[in-house]
């Protein structure tokens, strides 16, 4: 557990380009334990790129990212095998998380059922609805105990009930001390978060404001 006041995630002066196209220019982001931060901005503002850099999936051209503990990353497009089912995805993660088959299934089923996923459905993920795939995507990101949760538009395909209960879960995760970062386009989401970070085009200083 990080000391109080020590951010669980801190990105400093992150600059990144794809070829000659500048995507992020000196962006900084800090997330404290138990804090929920929304990242907003137009299409192409670099929201997903910032998330991928924070997750460690891409290296920034300039800047540094500090993370306390393990990062859970829920990408916009679920990274799943089409012909494996939910339990097989859980079992695949077991050795990486150093969990037994039994405990990974127990943890996974608890998370999936919390999110309203039809636990026990042995259909390969290809045959699941978009919302169900996204719930599995989210559960896999949370598995194994994470300190920071990076969610890139995580509710794509959710019905209204799932969307509302998603924010209840976020509130529970933050109460448990997780730092949560959510990329969103929906203004209504901003009422559920502690702080909003806006990435602007043209690139410039990042607007970072507290939600009251």
């Amino acid at each position: 557990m990080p000391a109080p006041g020590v951010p669980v995630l801190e990105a400093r002066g992150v600059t990144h380009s794809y070829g000659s196209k500048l995507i992020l220019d000196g962006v900084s982001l800090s997330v404290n334990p138990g804090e929920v931060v929304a990242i907003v901005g137009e299409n192409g503002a670099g929201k997903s790129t910032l998330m991928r850099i924070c997750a460690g999936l891409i290296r920034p051209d300039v800047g540094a990212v500090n993370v306390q503990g393990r990062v859970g990353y829920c990408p916009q497009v679920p990274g799943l095998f089409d012909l494996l089912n939910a339990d097989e995805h859980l079992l695949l993660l077991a050795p990486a998380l150093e969990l037994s088959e039994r405990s990974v299934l127990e943890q996974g089923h608890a998370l999936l059922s919390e999110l309203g996923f039809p636990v026990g459905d042995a259909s390969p993920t290809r045959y699941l609805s978009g919302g169900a795939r996204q719930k599995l995507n989210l559960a896999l990101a949370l598995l194994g105990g994470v300190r920071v949760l990076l969610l890139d538009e995580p509710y794509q395909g959710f019905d209204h009930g799932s969307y509302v209960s998603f924010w209840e879960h976020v509130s529970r995760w933050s109460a448990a001390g997780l730092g949560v970062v959510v990329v969103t386009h929906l203004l209504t989401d901003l009422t559920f978060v502690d702080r909003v970070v806006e990435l602007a085009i043209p690139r410039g200083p990042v607007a970072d404001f507290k939600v009251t």
Partner: protein
Amino acid sequence: MSLRRVIVPATMTGRELLRRHVAMGLLTGLPLAFYICSVSQGPHHAAVTGGIAMAFSVAGASIFAALTARPVDQRLVLAGYRPFELLLGRLLFLELFGVVISTLFSVIMVLGTGPQHPVVLGIGVELVAAISVPFGLAVGALAPHELEGVLMLIGVVGIQLTLDSTQTIAKLLPFWGAQRVISYAVDVTAWTSVAPLAALVYPSLLLAVAAYIAHARAPAVRSIGAAT
């Protein structure tokens, strides 16, 4: 490294791949089609064509396994796998798959061709399968999409099939060593002592390429408090 960290990815690669019934049927049928179509041109030609065409099957499956796993691998490495463990797991399943189908195919070819050295023919076909896995994994790591991967496969295997094994360009291609072993099985004058060596060195190099790319692409997993 725990064996479980290799066996579980190997098992899941197998499940994912073997559930693609149509693709697997087409992949395993390809070498047989090449063999049957070339029987009329003599036993030597049929054995070499059928044997090298085994690469379409095993390398095709390997390319597919590598490309479908790419977006999932990021998540798996973030969770704690090392890229090499995932590669090794995939290699393990695909080599077993290669052994099974190349053994079955060798029996068909031995019965159909009547080679002078049936065991050597079997070894040659097994070598093609064994080389095909690291070849497919390397192509799967290099190719941006399935189309490019398949075109690379068709290009390399197609050129290897077209060229006479004595030509210099043929010697630079991955299946040359195995091609010479198969040739020897049906024609003892075709022996080249460096062929088995080439058949072993090439896959090692290809595996090193695949491992390097997997490592380079891997997420920058950080220890607690470390900076990227």
